[in-house]
């Protein structure tokens, strides 16, 4: 969850900046696992730090998106995010993803720290307006469901299906129409075959062939009688 990673590695300048900024902000630098634990328990889904952080293993470490890898400019952005105690401040933390930044922007650090005691209240605090991945499921709902608010392919399956069905209603309607027209054509083709050759009979192919022979003989007989009538007495 949005939080401050402990300072363990990094370039000398970055480390110095980090120590200075920590002293300034006066916060101990650790992640907030309470939110993750709540989500896992409530949703039954596995959730990791990538819900809000850049790196799935959280902010501490040397990998991209973790504190140990930050440049001086990124440290500067991190410190500005750390100092955003009040809501409404634009943040662009290098260790948080867009959802993490949105939480800080919406709530401010102060309220977020208070919510650590009751992580179930985070969705109500976030509201239902924000939908960062535009999958028509609010970020707050995705948090409760343990799905990723930045991935349109992650969401409660049934809800995602209904939302996408509405979104692609025209495409689906065209597809249904095309299929129905196709099936209508095939069905008529089928009926024509059935009617013309009497393929499906009570007694199988032999009857069908017998029927065809009788039909041919009858046709031939009628042709002869027509010719005879035309020829006159």
């Amino acid at each position, binding site marked *: 969850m949005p939080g401050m990673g402990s300072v363990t590695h990094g370039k000398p300048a970055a480390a110095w900046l980090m120590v200075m900024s920590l002293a300034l902000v006066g916060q101990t630098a650790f992640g907030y696992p309470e939110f993750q634990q709540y989500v896992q328990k409530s949703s039954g889904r596995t959730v990791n730090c990538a819900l809000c952080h850049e790196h799935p*293993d959280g902010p501490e470490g040397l990998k991209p998106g973790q504190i140990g890898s930050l440049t001086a400019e990124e440290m500067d952005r991190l410190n500005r995010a750390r100092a955003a105690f009040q809501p409404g401040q634009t943040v662009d933390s290098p260790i948080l993803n867009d959802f993490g930044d949105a939480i800080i922007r919406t709530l401010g650090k102060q309220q977020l720290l208070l919510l650590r005691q009751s992580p179930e209240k985070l969705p109500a605090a976030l509201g239902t307006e924000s939908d960062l991945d535009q999958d028509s499921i609010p970020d707050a709902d995705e948090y409760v469901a343990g799905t990723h608010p930045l991935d349109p392919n992650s969401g409660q*399956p049934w809800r*995602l*299906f209904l939302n996408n069905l509405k979104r*692609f209603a025209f495409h*689906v309607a065209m597809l249904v129409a095309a299929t129905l027209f196709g099936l209508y054509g095939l069905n008529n083709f089928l009926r024509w075959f059935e009617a013309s050759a009497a393929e*499906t009979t*009570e007694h199988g*192919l032999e009857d069908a062939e017998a029927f065809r022979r009788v039909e041919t003989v009858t046709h031939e007989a009628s042709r002869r009688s027509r010719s005879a009538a035309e020829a006159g007495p």
Partner: protein
Amino acid sequence: MSAAERVQKVGRFVAERFPVEKFSFHSLFQKKEVPIHRMSWAYYMGGLALFFFMIQLGTGLMLLFYYQPTVSDAHASVEYITTQVSGGGLIRNLHTWASSAMIFCVLAHIITTFAMKAFEKPREVTWITGVVLLLLTFGFGFTGYLLPWHQIAVNATKVGLQSIEEAGRYLPGALAEVPAQVRVLIQGEAAVGQATLSRFFALHVVVLPLLVFATLGLHVLLVQLHGMSQGVDRPTKKSERFFPLFVLKDFSLWGFVFLVVFVVALCLPFESFFSFPLFQPFDALGSTPEGIKPEWYFFFVYYPLELLPFWLVMLGQGVVVAGLFLTPWIFSGTSRKTLSIIAGAAAFYLVVITVFGQDIYQFFKGE
């Protein structure tokens, strides 16, 4: 029996299974009849499996234009296909859903074929090619699962390959080394890595499709040569022509099924059924997320492996696979009623273990 008699016997066997006199358009298409009875719906399952295979070929070919089979780029290329390529997400989702549908249809096809005793003389080779196609389909699933190179793909493949090696513990003498060598042969190196990905990619897009083309060609040819099996004990008097009536009905069903699969692929991402950490890029040095499992169509062997002794499950699987190949001879004298009961039990097991496998596991493990 003299050598000449043996040759004659083999010759008769081959002649009965491959009747060359029926190699004509008239015999293969015009004369072919499809019986009409209460199990007639089962005649469509094979065609449906074929239809899904064709979808797999088409969508797989499209994915091939963008997919990069390297450990550094595989996941990124799949992400690129899903998020950047026009229609890429739909094609990928269609490929995933159709693969599951194909495996479902192949399983349903083999179970109904068994229940209808369609493996009877002279259809033994048709049955065996069907079993080979089932195994090849599972092979497609196993090799394709690794290609996106995300957490669940790599970790599930590791577990799968590890279970091959574990079989060596129960083999005697020099044979004990064979499974480990098979694992290295498949894996290509000490751990699942680039060599494994390259091999799985080659198997998935070249080797298995070629094997399927050959086996499927033979299977369909034999089905046409011998015609549809009677399927029921009392010969039905009703039948319909295969061409064009049955074929047109098949096409109608394909059209409807394509509509359903397309809408599902458009609106319901396959990934939404899983926890999102499972689809993050594989990180050999990072933590392994919880919930690593194979695809649903391997649950029938995965959950027993989790609950029962390894040797018992492997023995059971070996018996089942051998039994499948020998079905035409083992069950030649068995009535359709008994076969239907066995097929029903197999279907029941597959459905229960696939749908409730996790609950059963938790019940017995107390987790």
